[in-house]
């Protein structure tokens, strides 16, 4: 009577496959019933009614990258924190709560230092990024 041990992951794979199928089948079905009369004007990109000038794919502002950068550091941090935090209760019951608390605090304080530095240097500002070093 043993259910396959991968049974717990099976529904995830199934859901992802069904997600793909959902999109594919719906697009196929609509292909049958919908009209299809493309004209060059209709297939133009919307640019407030004017003819579009140039491509949209151009270099962008660097602040998006800074946001992504701080995000990824905290993302990794949370990935490392999740298992540690989930054993806190168990460790507390075993009497090692103080030790693990100190470990968590050190880990977090180092990162708080990092974000405090970024805050101080103005990396967290969205608008003022260019006037940081004026003083």
């Amino acid at each position, binding site marked *: 009577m043993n259910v396959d041990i*991968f049974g717990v992951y099976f529904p995830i794979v199934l859901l992802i496959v069904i997600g793909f199928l959902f999109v594919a089948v719906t697009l196929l079905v609509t292909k049958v019933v919908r009209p299809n009369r493309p004209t060059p004007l209709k297939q133009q990109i919307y640019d407030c009614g004017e003819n579009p000038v140039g491509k949209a794919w151009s*270099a962008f502002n660097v602040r998006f990258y800074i946001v992504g*950068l701080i995000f990824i550091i905290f*993302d990794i941090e949370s990935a490392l924190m999740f298992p540690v935090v989930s054993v806190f209760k168990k460790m507390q019951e075993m009497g090692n709560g103080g030790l693990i608390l100190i470990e968590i605090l050190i880990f977090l304080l*180092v990162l708080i230092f*990092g974000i405090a530095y970024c805050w101080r240097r103005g990396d967290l500002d969205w608008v003022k990024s260019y006037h940081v070093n004026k003083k």
Partner: protein
Amino acid sequence: MFGTILFICSAIFTICGAVMVAVSKNVIHASIYLLISLIGVAGLYLTLGADFVAVTQLVVYVGGVVILMLFAIMLTGGADLKVVSRYGFTKDPGMGSLKTYVIGGLTSLFMAIVTGKLIYNAVINTTTENQLNMENSVEQTVSKIGTLLVTKHVLAFEISSILLLGALVGAAIIARPVKLGDE
């Protein structure tokens, strides 16, 4: 049964994604193929019973690294292939030419053969007697990893926070926009 199917599908995803990264001509497409390949690797982790590592792969790569790559691609001029350098002479397109592919192919083939030989020798000499019982390993990977992180590998855990601090501060300094009148 399901494990086998999952393994085969994930392997196909991984390898096809990696190969498409190597051959696609558009760097944004390449990063999407990288995403597919990384999801395949996460599937392989699942077949190995490493659920936490698989989900970490998903969180860090899919949510983090790929988005960061896409941002960086947008910041460096999108997928435009600048064939002509600003000094005026033509050079290889950004996604490689036939010459680079031949050289790269030969090099990677050579390294693959050498590494494959090493792996083969290693596998022949490795006993697979004491492999984990699947039932137990899936049960509590998270708390086991957590316990390892706060006991045996605590130094690596704390040092990784220093590494992250260094990466954050360093990358923020490097990527900070150049000020007018600063130089």
